């Protein structure tokens, strides 16, 4: 009997250590008591050992996804970032389509990374820090972009958000956690950023739409300003370097808000997940396109592949003239606004018509605040 208990104890050590430390003594005691009192010893032993594998998997999954450590989320964000980087490197060729696809992949990865970081901040800080961390990210992005002298080098420009994410967001979030702990009343506490429990009041569509449109308008405004370099020559570097970053931060906030809204309204539905991924992809590619069109590369003819591509496919002369003469506003809305409106529509559809609510405990735990 003692050998069986020793073997059982040895297997219990495969549980995550917090679980083992907390439950192993009582599990062993319960097992020993059951064995001592039952007449069906073989059955009890078989059941106890047979249920271990599934239980171990559950405990490990639960342990991984319930940890509130920001490090976990940054690690996940880093993984997504590395995948994006690989997609970027693999696609570095001379193929004409790569001028859109390559930065597009990279942008999707960046957006996903922002999403993970935002969720991490959300879990770690519960409310105000979620919004403030993103704002801080945008500000930090501005500072870094101003200090980056080679904006037109796509690779350098695309690397910047990664450093920002790993330096400034943890610092901001840690600071806000401390601040939150010291405050009696949290100034930005709201249904949006509080516990996702049964006590939490439901989020309203009106609030969501107002918040969302505010963020989307800010993103469009940033895009618009970044393209408009007329009378502001003295602060031109700020406009050129900072505004695209701010626009991207607002876009990421829009996608995150939409995902949180869809989740809070209907749980994790297939519609919600598909719409979020689709919207994220669309935002990624359209941002990439908007940067190519508005970031200077296209107009300046910096990238010969791009010039050839647009000459061949998109009627370069017509669009170049059109873009340079009048239509900053139109382009801002088309490339910046429409994708964000699509995200908004997806979130509302997902919240209203959850096609099929799936059981994804890991994701539920990822979004839930303990």
């Amino acid at each position: 009997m003692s050998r069986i208990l020793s073997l059982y104890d040895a297997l219990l050590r495969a549980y995550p250590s917090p679980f083992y430390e907390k439950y192993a003594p009582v599990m062993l005691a319960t097992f020993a008591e059951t064995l001592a009192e039952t007449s069906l010893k073989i059955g009890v032993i078989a059941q106890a050992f047979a249920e271990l594998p599934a239980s171990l998997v559950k405990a490990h999954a639960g342990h991984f996804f319930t940890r509130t450590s920001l490090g976990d989320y940054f690690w996940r964000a880093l993984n997504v970032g590395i995948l994006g980087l690989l997609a970027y490197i693999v696609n570095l060729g001379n193929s004409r389509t790569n001028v859109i696809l390559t930065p597009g992949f990279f942008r999707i990865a960046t957006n996903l990374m922002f999403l993970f970081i935002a969720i991490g901040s959300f879990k770690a800080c519960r409310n105000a820090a979620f919004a403030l961390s993103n704002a801080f990210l945008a500000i930090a992005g501005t500072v870094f972009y101003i200090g980056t002298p080679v904006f037109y080098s796509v690779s350098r420009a695309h690397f910047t958000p990664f450093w920002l994410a790993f330096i400034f967001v943890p610092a901001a979030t840690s600071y806000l956690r401390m601040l939150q702990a010291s405050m009696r009343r949290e100034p930005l506490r709201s249904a949006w950023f509080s516990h996702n429990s049964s006590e939490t009041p439901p989020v309203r569509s009106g609030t969501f739409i107002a918040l969302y449109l505010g963020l989307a308008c800010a993103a469009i405004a940033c895009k618009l300003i970044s393209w408009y370099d007329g009378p502001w020559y003295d602060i031109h570097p700020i406009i050129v370097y900072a505004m695209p970053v701010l626009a991207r931060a607002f876009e990421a906030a829009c996608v995150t808000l939409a995902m949180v809204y869809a989740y809070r309204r209907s749980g994790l539905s297939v519609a919600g997940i598909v719409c979020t991924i689709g919207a994220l992809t669309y935002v990624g590619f359209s941002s990439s396109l908007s940067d190519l069109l508005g970031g200077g590369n296209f107009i300046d003819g910096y990238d010969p592949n791009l010039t050839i591509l647009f000459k061949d496919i998109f009627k370069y002369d017509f669009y170049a003239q059109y873009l340079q003469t009048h239509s900053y506003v139109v382009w801002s809305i088309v490339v910046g606004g429409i994708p964000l409106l699509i995200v908004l529509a997806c979130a509302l559809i997902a919240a209203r018509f959850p096609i099929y609510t799936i059981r994804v405990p890991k994701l539920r735990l990822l979004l839930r605040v303990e």
Partner: protein
Amino acid sequence: MKPLTTPSLYLLLCLGGEERHGYELMKMAAEVSDGSVSFGPATLYTTLQRLIEDGLIEATREETVNGRQRRYYKITGAGAKRLNEEGERMSAFVKALRKASV
């Protein structure tokens, strides 16, 4: 709100009256379910942990009996409420089933 799993439901049911320890819960669950619910230690404690995380039960005290550690659990207010809700949900289904004469 996602319905509770069968093991969780039986554990809440067994904790409805008074605080109990793990082995007691195993025996009682088998008894009240006529043997259809049978826990091993791993399933029992991972389910108990999940219920604690969800705020439906809480660990109250520990004691050592015959050299064996025992940890006692009791249902919380939220757990009792949830148990009642699950009961009402099931009653409504049974009523509908009878009405439909399936």
